[in-house]
């Protein structure tokens, strides 16, 4: 039972923190892969950046720098890391997370706020200089990433499991499953093309990079071993019940928080929407992938998550 405004701000704190974490991780992974394959296949390196721009939209469509890959990569890096005007840059998300947290400081612990504030301040410091060279960039992003994880740790370790915490976690889990789905939706068309146009080691690097981008490579290996089979990777990222960034796990987490927020007697509209989605994900499997239905299914997931967000905003935040 908390103020609607406070619930709203905590929900967005969770969403923006998760978004910043996702962006930091994906930027690091993309930068690494594109550097490694640059000499082998420039087109593929460019495609990595193009995908990233589709996952975190907000760039100007036509840029002069786009003609040269180095310029294109540098512009993407800058845009998604420290550009204060880019709506999906890490800096922008962290600033929004902090603004929201600052507006409800009394609902958070000192540990949570201090970690978030310090992470933000550190990155803000970089926005005043340019991220000069790749090592500087990597060290700045890694440090921001660590800062975000320590904030998440403070949330886990210090916040009471009350309504405020539930809304924060709801935002985090909804953002997570949504972004995972967007990533899969963006990457799969090229990866699932019947005839891979590139040589096999490079093909597997891409799948490995996809798993790393969803911090799921180690978890995948525990289930399927080191061998990367596209169908297994897909199966894992869509339907694995245990890895925190699979679509199935994500939808169940959202459902769980919505159930707990709902009053005991009756499920809310958003809880029912996501409940159905979680059930679909629990009973789907290889068939869907074999039948080539992954992409329409991902579109369906995205649409349902969008509806759930709208429904919960109306119900709980009065927006």
């Amino acid at each position, binding site marked *: *039972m*908390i*103020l*609607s*405004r*406070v*619930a709203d701000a905590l929900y967005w704190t969770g969403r923006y923190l998760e978004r910043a974490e996702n962006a930091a991780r994906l930027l690091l992974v993309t930068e690494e892969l594109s550097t490694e394959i640059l000499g082998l296949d420039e087109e593929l390196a460019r495609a990595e950046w193009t995908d990233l721009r589709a996952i975190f939209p907000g760039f100007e469509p036509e840029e002069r720098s786009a003609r040269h890959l180095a310029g294109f990569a540098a512009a993407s890096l800058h845009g998604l890391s420290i550009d204060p005007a880019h709506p999906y840059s890490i800096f922008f998300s962290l600033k929004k997370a902090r*603004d929201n947290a*600052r*507006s*409800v*400081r*009394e609902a958070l612990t*000192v540990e949570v*706020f*201090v970690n978030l*504030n*310090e992470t933000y*301040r550190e990155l803000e410091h970089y926005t005043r200089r340019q991220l000069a060279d790749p090592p500087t960039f990597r060290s700045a992003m890694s440090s921001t990433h660590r800062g975000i994880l320590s904030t998440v740790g403070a949330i886990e370790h210090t916040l009471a499991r009350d*309504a405020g915490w539930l*809304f924060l976690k709801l935002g985090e889990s909804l953002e997570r499953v949504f972004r995972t789905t967007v990533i899969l939706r963006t990457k799969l068309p090229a990866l699932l093309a019947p005839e891979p146009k590139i040589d096999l080691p490079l093909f597997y690097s891409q799948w490995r990079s996809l798993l790393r981008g969803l911090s799921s490579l180690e978890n995948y290996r525990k289930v399927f071993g080191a061998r990367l089979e596209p169908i297994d990777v897909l199966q894992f990222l869509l339907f694995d019940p245990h890895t925190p960034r699979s679509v199935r796990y994500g939808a169940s987490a959202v459902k769980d928080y919505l159930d707990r*927020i709902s*009053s005991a007697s009756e499920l809310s509209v958003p809880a029912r929407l996501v409940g159905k989605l979680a059930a679909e994900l629990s009973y789907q499997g290889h068939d869907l992938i074999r039948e080539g239905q992954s992409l329409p299914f991902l579109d369906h997931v995205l649409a349902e998550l969008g509806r759930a967000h709208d429904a919960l905003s109306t119900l*709980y*935040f*009065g927006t």
Partner: protein
Amino acid sequence: MKWVAARSGFDEVFDQRGHCRAHYSPLISVLEAFTKEDVERRERLQQLSLRSQGITFTVYGEKEGIERIFPFDFVPRIIPASEWKTIQDGLVQRITTLNLFLLDIYQEQQCLKDRIVPPELVLSRKEYKRELLEVVPPRKIFTHVVGTDIIRDDTGEYLVLEDNCRCPSGVSYVLENRTVLSRVFPEFFGSYPVRPIKDYPTLLLDTLRFVAPRPGQNPVVVVLSPGIHNSAYFEHSFLAREMGVPLVEGRDLLVEGNRVFMRRTHGKRQVDVIYRRIDDDFLDPLAFRRDSMLGVPGLLNVYREGNVALANAPGAGVADDKSVYAFMPRLIKYYLGEEPLLPQVPTYLGFRRDDFRYIGEHLDELVVKTTGDAGGYGMLMGPFASAREREAYLGAMRKNPGNYIAQPLVELSTHPTHIDGQFEPRRVDLRPFILYGDRIRVLPGGLTRVALRASSYVVNSSQGGGSKDTWVLAPRDP
């Protein structure tokens, strides 16, 4: 470590011959043992600590409102028990009087009928809320939280400069300064019986609960803030957190059936006491300013009906009016039959013809203030202004003489302050905080504000001031 001697006024630490006053000598010995490098390293730690905790205030007039750290000077101000006793007794006497005065002018108006204060002076103030005539706040308390500004003249005597009966701010810095100092310079505390202040939020909550209109268990208390863009937002949030009560904005509250509720995710809940940090004019767009987006439509009616307590009570602002201030010694005598325990600064009132003439003739010796403004805005420091500035100011005064008061420039006391690697005297004042609940309590400490520029007399944070931890010493056992 280099100490620069004070040139004028009363110095808190060194007497006129440059000898350290007895109650400061243990501190100075400890400080002397530090090297310059040690001090600078500690000061960096202190900066980091303030920044990472987001202990900031917002400066108006800059784009988007810039968040600044409230500068903190680590040399604490120390007030011996005997001096504190005078201050405390004087403040209790003053707050009692202010509250009696407010009760009176919103009911019988006896002090106006007896011509203790000119009626036109009170009744013409915009802070005087005619619509609240005959409304008695719960437990007859108007001024639940007061911050009174005190200075010391060149003889070291404590003088009241002004009372703040609306939404005095700064207490969060009082508490945070103590935390920061004890972390960064723990060595300072060893030889002093410093009275604790950290129970302020508990006392504040008790004070607020005491005035809850619904009898019985667990009244719902909230802090009402204008929101994140307000300069004192950090404090609003800090106090809500420390008291464990919701921080609300106007849009979180609604009035239904002459009761106030807060909007929650699962239905609404009635609110009993609002510690409001919003000015009267913005409280309720139906009663006061119609364009206010910060307030709660209908709130004043609920208050009038006695279904919610507001702290401080609306209309209390008239008591800290700078021209009412001039009458405080008379009011103390009138209501309590006592002599004022704390003297105050002589004040000339623009609305009196003789006073106005005097002000015009002595503008180069006087500090002139507008009666409505706070925070050092809209004042003229006569002795430092150019002839042209004085002339222009006088022109503005002539249009509305009643809006101005003037006081002689009091040479504020100075206190050694760490500036660029050495200790230099800087002007200070003191704002103790007083709570009025089941009885009047004075927090043993307060906000010592310090003017960081050598030439400055203005200590407000909005005008480039900083602050110090303020120690009130416990009396020694007899």
